[in-house]
């Protein structure tokens, strides 16, 4: 029995990250702490998932301190430690960070320009004739 459960777990290994995200969405969407069964039922609306798989993923999230659990009756109920907005804020803070030391976790597209310099560059760019190397302009 245990062997079967383990195979199931390792097969779900690759999309684990995706599953974790789905479990978080279910927990965030619920106004009160939810049990594994409720999470499984909600996720099963889109695809079949074993109760044990959902439990493994949920417990992983708890060990990562994304979820906390409280005992209610004979089973555990899970709730999020921080809101989705908190995580978004943290991610965005790093994404908008322009100093290199702390920005290695993410690579971001833009930097920062002085307004005057940006305007001058915009003018120069507009003065550029039809892009000679634009794949669409090219024959």
């Amino acid at each position, binding site marked *: 029995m245990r062997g079967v459960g383990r195979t199931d777990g390792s097969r779900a290994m690759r999309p684990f990250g995706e599953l974790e*995200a789905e479990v978080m*969405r279910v927990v965030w969407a619920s106004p009160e702490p939810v049990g594994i069964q409720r999470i499984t039922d909600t996720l099963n609306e889109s695809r079949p998932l074993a109760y044990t798989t959902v439990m493994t993923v949920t417990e992983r999230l708890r060990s990562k301190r994304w979820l906390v659990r409280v005992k209610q009756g004979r089973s555990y109920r899970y709730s999020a430690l921080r809101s989705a907005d908190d995580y978004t804020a943290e*991610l965005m803070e790093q994404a*908008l960070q322009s100093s*290199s030391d702390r920005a290695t976790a993410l690579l971001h597209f*833009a930097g920062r320009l002085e307004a005057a310099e940006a305007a001058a560059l915009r003018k120069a760019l507009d003065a550029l004739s039809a892009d000679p190397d634009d794949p669409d302009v090219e024959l």
Partner: protein
Amino acid sequence: MSNFEAAALFIIVGLLVYVLLLGGPVARLLDRAHWASRFPQAALRCWQAFAVSLLAAVASLLLLLGHDTWENGVAWLFDADMWKVHAAYGGHWLVEGINRTAPWVLSLGVLALVVPTLWKLVRLRRERRRHRLTADAVSTPGRFGEGDVRVLPHTAPAVFCVPGGRNRSRIVVTTAAVEMLSERELAAALEHERAHLKYRHHRAFLTADVLLWAFRWSRFFRMYARQVRRLAEMAADDEAARKHGRRHVASALLEMCRVGPTVLEPGLPALTGTDPAERVRRLIKAAPSRAKAWGSALGVAVSAVVPVLPLLLALIPGILLAGTAHGC
């Protein structure tokens, strides 16, 4: 035998000169080279090759100075006569103390590099895992061109990627950025991020960060860390420009910088090495070089040859003595 003794001294001096030349004038030349911004990815490889070569040269020097380890290694490797090897490498002119301290300096140096690297790696992985989960849980998948991109609901425009192995990297764009950028501009910005992931620039950044942390006093490594970031951004810009035209890349960059990062830590911008004004000017001035083969061939050649040069230099007397163990 005396000619061999001279050879060893010559090699120690040679390595020293090599370190001083590579870390000084040669690096300054590359730092100022105009071709670097035309072939940013090739130049980036050159910088990495230089850094590896410099570290290898210093390590070889320390090994040579602590010649007991070295001589035994060479005698074993080339099946050479121990006494002849000793005559070639060992110097009565060297103080015994140097011989004994050099290996310690080397091991301490290696330790001082490996420990913070591992520590930073563990911390980065944890941080990236959290960002990846956030991106997966909070954003919705959007389809812009190939590959999947996450759309994060947020009022600040941003385009960025969370680096990771296969299937684990994420490109994220905020709803504000989707609204602000035109379709082509957005495609260009996303291509820029894909190029970062394709060239594994995050690894180059990590290496540069660790080396800068360890050798902040060294001018070479300060230049190296700055150039790695600068050239990586240019290489990614070029990749995007080849696909979507430089006008759209420059335009997207200008749009994003207009409202861009507001957190600007004083005293640090010199380290970022990514001056968006320089990137835009460069895109306006000239099309990304199409002579990619030439540039990358140069990069590959330099990155293959330069790192092994110091080791070759250090091995010359050993190679000359190859097989002498049976001669006696």
